[in-house]
């Protein structure tokens, strides 16, 4: 096993024998630029205040024909080694993402044509047909995450690219971070029954059933049927088949939840295997990360499970400023679940075929995410390239006017050692994965998936069935709505909170004093056991609105009462409970202000360091912020200084966030 030469500490990297490297970088695609412009681009990127350059390494570009490899021998644009060496000469560390899937708006998402057109490697729909991705400039059949033929080919790619990367890993070179694959999630064809019915996936499915239920007989019992052999235990092809009126037939829901969990597991398995292939190729000395795309709450990617197979899992951010609440929710989830919120892609500009985003959108997204706990990011794209608009630096390495704002932000983050600060929150809202899975399976719009709806500005439950399916309420909708009600009430009360995934490590649960966990007629017994562990560790747990009586096989189970019960579906009760919690737990409400303005405090052992003030509305406001002590607050982007004894009055333009450094007034 390779000895690590770079450690991941908090939100920074610690290469052996070198100083701390905060997780901040900018993206630049060497193969899309003239080598003559590389150095200017790298210098402009460094001048923008990031210590790392990030680049994909596209398989398709380096193996245009089967077995024909080009890492600069023929086309100088493809000289990855020279590019990395040049970055080292310019004093930049490197973060490399060799895929195999990279998207990057490349045709076939960066995969070679001979890979995507090989039937043995293609994902399959329930009818056995290839699964087509609609993205421009060419629709193509997506690979199967389970295909052994595909994974073998991927191993070959990693061996080849490792010949360039391995000698450049720290300390011999400047490569300090690697990413495994990209935005795992069935290539955006992630409706519950889109895929994958590839024969290699079905082998994994049977193994999953066996691991979950035990014998064939037990699986039959759980699914309410009689399988003669494992070959009979086929995955579901749709939700409605076993639903008659309001009542699903016995076993139908178990089969559906098994499939939902399996789809998550398949993604974790493939990332684990690819990470293993990268280690086998000699790349294991530096940390591995993975990035999850927009719409993660409707996606089959399991962030906590992925966190067990790579060193860090982050979320990608591409949002208009009007999606304030989405940016906030995603960051609170990432911070709450991983304890180290990082954005492997923080949009600077966007691909031309998506909703146009402006510079104000990018900047607002960055500041809002930082306000709610983001500690590091990769500015994507820092340097312009084909099939992109709005990068901070043009393709000849000249900084555009927008680069000034990013430079000021980076300077502020560096100066404040922002990666070492903490946004404290006593309250966690638990996202129960069994309800998320249930919601996915009741989604009715197929490839217009829960994840797609969420990414388009809706919610992952917008396309779900609306009926109760035999329960006392449509649980597939209510879990999301009840959590949203709680979040709104906490925001209105000025109480900082986070979201925590129900399968997050226990220490993420016990990092809070109070956990609110939705519960309905059925629940995962494993989740209940973890809530009990949290209770034993001194955390106050609140569940509701119902006490569960069924487990996730929808059979009677014993759920010993855990903590307290609250009617999460009753707005009045929720608000009253929050006011009571504030008193009872002495919950901190730092720098309170009046809605719709929000504040978010970041601190370290020396005290209050940074206060974000956010105006998510389209109107100007004057923020009145109560102070715990006389304070001088400096807007690190505009340079404005505000001072107050008991309060600060700060003008807030529409959809703007201020990053204020705090100092005690003399």
């Amino acid at each position, binding site marked *: 096993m390779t000895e690590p030469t770079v450690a991941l500490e908090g939100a920074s990297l610690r290469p052996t024998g070198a100083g701390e490297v905060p997780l901040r970088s900018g993206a630049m695609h060497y193969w899309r630029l003239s080598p003559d412009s590389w150095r200017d681009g790298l210098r402009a990127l460094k001048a923008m205040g990031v210590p790392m350059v990030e680049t994909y390494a596209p398989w398709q570009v380096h193996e245009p024909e089967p077995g024909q490899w080009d890492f600069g021998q023929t086309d100088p644009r493809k000289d990855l080694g020279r590019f990395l060496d040049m970055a080292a000469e310019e004093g930049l560390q490197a973060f490399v993402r060799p895929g195999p899937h990279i998207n990057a708006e490349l045709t076939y998402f960066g995969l070679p044509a001979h890979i995507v057109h090989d039937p043995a490697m293609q994902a399959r729909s329930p009818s056995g047909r290839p699964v087509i991705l609609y993205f421009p400039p*060419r*629709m193509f059949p997506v690979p199967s995450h389970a295909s052994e033929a595909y994974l073998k080919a991927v191993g070959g790619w990693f061996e080849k690219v490792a010949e360039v990367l391995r000698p450049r890993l720290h300390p011999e070179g400047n490569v300090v971070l690697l990413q495994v694959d990209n935005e795992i999630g069935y290539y955006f064809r992630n409706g519950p029954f889109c895929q994958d019915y590839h024969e290699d996936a079905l082998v994994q499915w049977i193994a999953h059933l066996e691991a979950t239920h035990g014998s064939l007989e037990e699986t039959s019992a759980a699914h309410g049927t009689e399988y003669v052999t494992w070959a009979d235990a086929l995955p579901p092809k749709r939700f409605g088949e076993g639903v008659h009126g309001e009542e699903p037939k016995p076993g139908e829901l178990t089969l559906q939840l098994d499939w939902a969990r399996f789809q998550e597991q398949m993604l974790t398995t493939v990332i684990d295997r690819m990470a293993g292939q990268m280690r086998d190729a000699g790349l294991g000395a530096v940390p591995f990360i993975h990035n999850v795309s927009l719409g993660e709450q409707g996606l089959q990617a399991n962030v906590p499970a992925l966190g067990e197979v790579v060193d860090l899992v982050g979320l990608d951010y591409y949002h208009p400023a*009007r999606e304030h*609440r989405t940016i906030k929710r995603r960051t609170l989830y990432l911070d709450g679940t991983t304890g180290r919120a990082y954005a492997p892609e923080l949009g600077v500009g966007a691909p031309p075929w998506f909703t146009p985003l402006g510079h104000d959108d990018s900047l607002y997204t960055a500041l809002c995410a930082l306000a709610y706990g983001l500690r590091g990011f990769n500015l994507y794209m820092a340097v312009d390239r084909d099939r992109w608009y709005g*990068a901070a630096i043009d393709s000849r390495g000249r900084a555009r006017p927008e680069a000034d704002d990013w430079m000021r932000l980076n300077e502020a983050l560096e100066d404040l050692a922002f990666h070492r600060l903490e946004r404290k929150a006593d309250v966690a809202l638990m996202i129960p994965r069994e309800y998320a899975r249930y919601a996915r399976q009741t989604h*009715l719009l197929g490839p217009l998936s829960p994840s797609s709806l969420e990414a388009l500005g809706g919610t992952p439950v917008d396309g779900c069935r609306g009926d109760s399916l035999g329960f006392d309420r449509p649980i597939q909708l209510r879990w999301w*709505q009840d*959590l949203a009600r709680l979040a709104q009430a906490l925001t209105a009360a000025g109480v900082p909170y986070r979201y925590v995934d129900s399968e997050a490590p226990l220490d993420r649960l016990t990092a809070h004093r109070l956990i609110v966990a939705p519960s309905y007629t059925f629940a995962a017994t494993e989740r209940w056991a973890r809530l009990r562990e949290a209770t034993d560790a001194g955390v106050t747990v609140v569940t509701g609105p119902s006490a569960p009586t069924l487990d996730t096989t929808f059979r009677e189970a014993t759920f010993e009462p855990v903590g307290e019960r609250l009617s999460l579906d009753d707005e009045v009760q929720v608000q009253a409970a929050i006011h009571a919690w504030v008193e009872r737990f002495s919950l901190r409400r730092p720098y309170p202000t009046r809605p719709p303005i929000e504040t978010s405090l970041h601190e370290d052992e020396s005290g209050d360091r940074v206060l974000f003030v956010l105006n998510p509305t389209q109107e100007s406001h004057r923020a009145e912020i109560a102070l715990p002590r006389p304070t001088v607050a400096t807007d690190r982007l505009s340079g404005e200084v505000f001072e107050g004894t008991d309060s600060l009055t700060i003008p807030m333009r529409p959809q703007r966030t201020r990053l204020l450094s705090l100092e005690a007034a003399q």
Partner: protein
Amino acid sequence: MIGPDLRVEGFDVTSWRHLVGLFMPNLEERMDRDAHESDDPAPPDPTEGQGGTLVVIDDPDRVILAARHSFDGAIPALIGESSSQDLRGLCASHGAMRVVVIRAGAMDELSDALAEGLAQEPESHRHGYIAQWLVLLRAVRQMMEVGDLRVWPNPVANVPLPSARMAQRALDAVLPDGKALLAALFDRGRPYTSLVIRRRNGLIDLVAGPDLLTQWTGPLGGDWRRDHRVFTRAVERNVAPVHLGLFAEVSAVREALRSGEPGEWARQVAVRDVIFNPMPMSVKLALGADAVRGISHVSSGLLGGVDLWKAAGPIVSRVRSRWTEIQSVSDELGFDPLVVLAALMRRDEPDLESDEH
């Protein structure tokens, strides 16, 4: 028609938004409007007024499984009801402008139909992305025919879907193979946005923005009405022969795009707020017809209701019937409609030195 090696490059955030905004007039407004809050359990503010889309998902027995209004959110009251009712009535009763009814599972079947269609039509790979979309649209049309997808009002009820070959012929007329389109727009003389599109080997392979165009032209004089020849020559040198060049004040283009007034394009050309260089025959014809309509409209007012458009009708018909053989609109009409229109607008002598048409 869109190549797999398509390059889109040379846009900063402003020039891209300006370009897209031309074709999406309410883009800025839409971008600033609050989105439906994704974690807000309450329905959005209904003050946006009546309208929006009602999306209904039903089962094969036409029992509604889910219903959602784009403004008001979920409509639980419709769950379990029949979707066999009159869609116009359903629309009206929920204050929607349109209703879409989708059978559960139909979207998955649509994806399969696409895979099947692409497998059966390998030539679509030669025609590229648009041809692939036509395969998908044909599958959608089939869904509508069997009732798995119902839309009211149906905007495409009697509109035939073009074949890939028809789409290709249309593209041939607009941008012949081996040629480039060039558009450069200005805001009171300052660069606003620009666009170069190239077609090569039958496929569009380049969409370039102001960064590249500036790189190709080098320093300019600052007066686009003179510099437009430099733009054209630069694109000829670096990209391909230019089939159509459009240079304009953005306000003029906006006005022409949004105005239904006859003669608007011709008027903008006449006052040199829009310059075509080069101007292909199809544009000359269109402008000629537009100018005649404009003259008719103006003269009708001046002459107390005498409609010269009707009088010009036979000429226009002749133009249309012989459009492939005529050399210029002016030759055919016996006068240059743009020069005449310009004179009419400015009430001065025609500018016979103009080289834009």
